[in-house]
């Protein structure tokens, strides 16, 4: 699909409406959090731990304080309020004072007249450590001495579904396949690094402009650590250079606000790329064991799995990530019996938390690897095996939850499987190795494989999840306020489309800058939830305005102030059973990969997808999510990994941490976009968030295609050239 513009003859939903922030973004005028400037502004810098585990004996700031141009040097002693923060559990120190638990943990922050003075002053702080042996193995963590007063296990959970003791009947030809799979640590690598600007306010508070995913949760964590009333902390969204989960946790927010309060001046901070790798959480690396039992005709009898996620030094969103991994461990299949056990543990590795796909990405490598193994053991076509077991509406998930709403798993698989295969590549540039011209066409082996995945939309397990919005209609202008963080996904476009759809094309729509001051929380821009939640809130507010206008068309001004809540969910019981999720999203990918087995180099030749989307609000933006999400999933299979050695990140740069370039990817082809015939209750116009599903199955399809090309087991992603070229199992 090369051209999708949608209709532009009207401005409502379903059209390819243009981004309202598009023009300033193409001219360079759009103000990202790194572009902020204030008169008299200082620069901030952070001192971080060089050790994965150590006791702090002393911190001497004398030399830093004495440097000309230095205005403040802050340590843990300067935090007036709660000394810790965290998304689910406040277990992470604002500044380490007694021990450090990972390389990069903040110890002090500096404000100075110049960026370089601030960095030199931070480097001039003398910290004396008693270096300890780090705990780096997540398996050892389960039984090791606790690294933290909260213990080493962030969460342990078990799902027991159907008959947990069910076993296959070998006499009847039942088949059992086992596999272990491993996923490396992926970085969100948003192009914009962490940055922001804080300044003190006249009322004794502080104002922060920041790139974030959730303004109100930042505000509450800042207020707690600064010991301020939350109303005295104003957080406003600055331009965000991508997020993908990296901006859910606090990074420099509290440090900046402390520095601004202490100096009485505006303070700006920008992380460099290396500091960005140290300063935000990553996708959990995972070790996963699976055992699948199926009848001779391919019908799944039972799925067993044990999942171990390395959460690193602090909790972040590890419990929620693990819940997703555990709940979706079986994949989008009918599974009558399941036992899935998951653990997320603390180590002295870098903290892990949210990244696009949130737990479902890791397990998709496992359940799809297993389906291919099972198909091979059964002598069955892997597509046929998947179709035989595909989830359908009304089926029960392994949590016991009934699948309400759309679940066109079979249709998604069929669409992708029916898509025509590409021919031979045209010319040497298209071979593995590309312009390096390393590969002879005759050496190339091609693999084709398909994968399917799913996950939840919105927060889960009984979380009280909501989004607020306000609209003021005055003189033909609808002014919308929502605290939803636009991080690039195009929510700002949807606001315009939704308001036009409800109130007509002739009114003018103005969207206020997202801020904690004029509207309640929008919740997080994560979990594929903002189209549904904040989009739903904007629609509710617009509907309210329309009803007022219909009732009394002569008023000058109309106001609507709403909070949108999704249908309630429940916690999981001790067997992991319940109604933990609001809604689900499904996607399928088929990859074609050419491999040069001698060198272990690869080329992703073709990638085709299908996805269930509820209802298309903007076909251009939808395609952008499908393409961008697939690229991140493929990147994890092909190249993306934070390489750790002794707890140190060995590749904290774009020279060494590779993300796909335009040359690494083919044009994504779309085989099917499936809309839901009956809109789900609460979804605006029936629309679902579409951003995460593309990241789940794309990587699993790529690794499966590499397996198909090479005949190798390749249980680990990303695949390194040496995994192929130097594999003892490689047939010459």
């Amino acid at each position, binding site marked *: 699909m090369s051209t999708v513009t949608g209709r532009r003859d009207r401005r409502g939903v379903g059209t390819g409406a243009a981004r309202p922030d598009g023009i300033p973004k193409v001219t360079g005028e759009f103000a*990202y959090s790194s572009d902020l400037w204030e008169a008299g502004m200082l620069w901030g810098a952070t001192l971080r731990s060089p050790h994965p585990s150590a006791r702090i004996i002393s911190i001497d700031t004398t030399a830093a304080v004495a440097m000309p141009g230095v205005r403040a040097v802050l340590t843990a002693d300067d935090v007036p309020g709660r000394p810790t923060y965290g998304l689910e559990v406040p277990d992470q120190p604002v500044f380490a004072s007694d021990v450090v638990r990972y390389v990069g943990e903040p110890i002090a922050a500096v404000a100075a007249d110049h960026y370089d003075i601030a960095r030199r002053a931070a480097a001039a702080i003398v910290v004396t450590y008693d270096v300890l042996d780090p705990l780096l193995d997540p398996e050892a963590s389960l039984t090791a001495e606790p690294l933290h007063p909260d213990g080493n296990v962030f969460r342990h959970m078990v799902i027991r579904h159907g008959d947990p003791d069910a076993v296959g009947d070998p006499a009847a030809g039942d088949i059992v396949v086992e596999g272990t799979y491993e996923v490396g640590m992926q970085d969100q690598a948003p192009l914009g690094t962490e940055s922001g600007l804080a300044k003190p306010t006249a009322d004794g508070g502080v104002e922060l402009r920041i790139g974030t995913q959730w303004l109100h949760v930042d505000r509450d964590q800042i207020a707690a650590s600064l010991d301020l009333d939350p109303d005295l902390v104003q957080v406003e969204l600055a331009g965000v250079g991508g997020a993908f989960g990296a901006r859910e946790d606090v990074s420099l927010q509290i440090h900046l606000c402390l520095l601004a309060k202490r100096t009485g001046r505006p303070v700006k901070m920008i992380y460099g790329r290396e500091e960005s790798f140290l300063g935000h959480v990553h996708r959990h690396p995972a070790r996963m064991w699976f055992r699948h039992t199926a009848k001779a005709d391919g019908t799944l009898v039972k799925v067993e799995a044990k999942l171990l996620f390395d959460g690193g030094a602090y909790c972040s969103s590890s419990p929620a990530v693990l819940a997703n991994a555990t709940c979706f461990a079986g994949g989008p299949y009918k599974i009558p019996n399941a036992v899935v056990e998951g653990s997320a543990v603390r180590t002295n590795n870098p903290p892990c938390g949210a990244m696009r796909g949130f737990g479902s990405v890791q397990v998709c490598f496992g359940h799809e690897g297993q389906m291919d193994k099972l198909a091979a053991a059964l002598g069955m076509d892997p597509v046929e095996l998947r179709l035989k077991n595909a989830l359908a509406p009304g089926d029960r998930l392994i949590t016991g939850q009934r699948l309400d709403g759309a679940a066109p798993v079979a249709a998604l698989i069929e669409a992708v499987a029916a898509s025509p295969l590409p021919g031979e590549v045209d010319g040497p540039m298209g071979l593995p190795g590309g312009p390096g011209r390393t590969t002879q066409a005759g050496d190339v082996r091609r693999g084709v494989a398909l994968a399917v995945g799913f996950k939840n939309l919105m927060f889960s397990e009984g979380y009280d999840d909501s989004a607020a919005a306000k609209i003021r209609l005055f003189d033909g202008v609808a002014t919308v306020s929502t605290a939803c963080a636009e991080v690039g996904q195009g929510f700002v476009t949807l606001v315009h489309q939704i308001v036009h759809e409800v109130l007509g094309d002739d009114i003018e729509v103005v969207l206020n800058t997202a801020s904690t001051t004029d509207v309640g929380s929008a919740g997080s821009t994560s979990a594929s939830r903002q189209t549904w939640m904040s989009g739903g809130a904007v629609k509710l507010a617009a509907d309210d305005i329309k009803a007022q206008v219909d009732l009394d068309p002569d008023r000058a001004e109309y106001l609507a102030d709403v909070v949108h809540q999704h249908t309630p969910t429940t916690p999981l019981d001790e067997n992991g059973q319940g109604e933990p999720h609001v809604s689900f999203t499904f996607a399928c990918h088929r990859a074609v990969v050419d491999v040069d087995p001698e060198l272990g180099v690869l080329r992703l030749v073709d990638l085709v997808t299908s996805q269930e989307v509820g209802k298309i609000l903007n076909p251009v933006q939808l395609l952008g999510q499908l393409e961008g999400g697939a690229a991140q999933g493929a990147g994890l299979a092909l190249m993306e990994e934070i390489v750790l050695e002794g707890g140190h990140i060995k590749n904290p740069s774009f020279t060494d941490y590779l993300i796909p370039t335009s040359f690494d990817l083919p044009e994504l082809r779309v085989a099917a976009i499936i809309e839901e015939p009956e809109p789900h209750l609460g979804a605006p116009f029936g629309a679902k968030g579409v951003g995460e599903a593309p990241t789940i199955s794309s990587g699993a399809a790529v690794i499966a295609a590499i397996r198909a090309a090479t005949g190798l087991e390749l249980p680990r992603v990303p695949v390194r050239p040496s995994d192929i070229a130097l594999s003892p199992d490689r047939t010459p």
Partner: protein
Amino acid sequence: MNYKLSVNGTDHTVESTWEGESLLYVLRERLGLPGAKGACEQGECGSCSVLLDGDLVCSCLVLAAAAEGRDVRTVEAVAGPEGLSDVQQAFLDAGAVQCGFCTPGLIVAVHDLLERHPQPDDLTMREELAGNLCRCTGYGRIMEAVRMAADRRAASA
């Protein structure tokens, strides 16, 4: 040490700064031209792309003081008085902009590409622009924007 920089046809005097400052830093922090973005500080991502005497460079790798006497063109000079450039318009029309952090660098790079390859094929486009990282789009809409701009130029030629 003061030095002069010619940026987008305007002469600036950069006053008594540390001469180790990169062109990117000076453009952004001293000359009020934040269009070029810093994302890697080592010439890998292309977010800071500018033209130096007509050559596409990463401004993070250029010493600002070494650019004295040369012609620096940034994204801020791409749009003319008559409005957006054809490449900028194509980026909007194709849906090539998401977070937009890579966009200014890509706008400069695509103008440079189309000067040298007015009708690039797919692999040429992808190879030529491989020095401009984008994390949001997967490049699909960006390639569509390049095709769109190239086709429109060819049609109006």
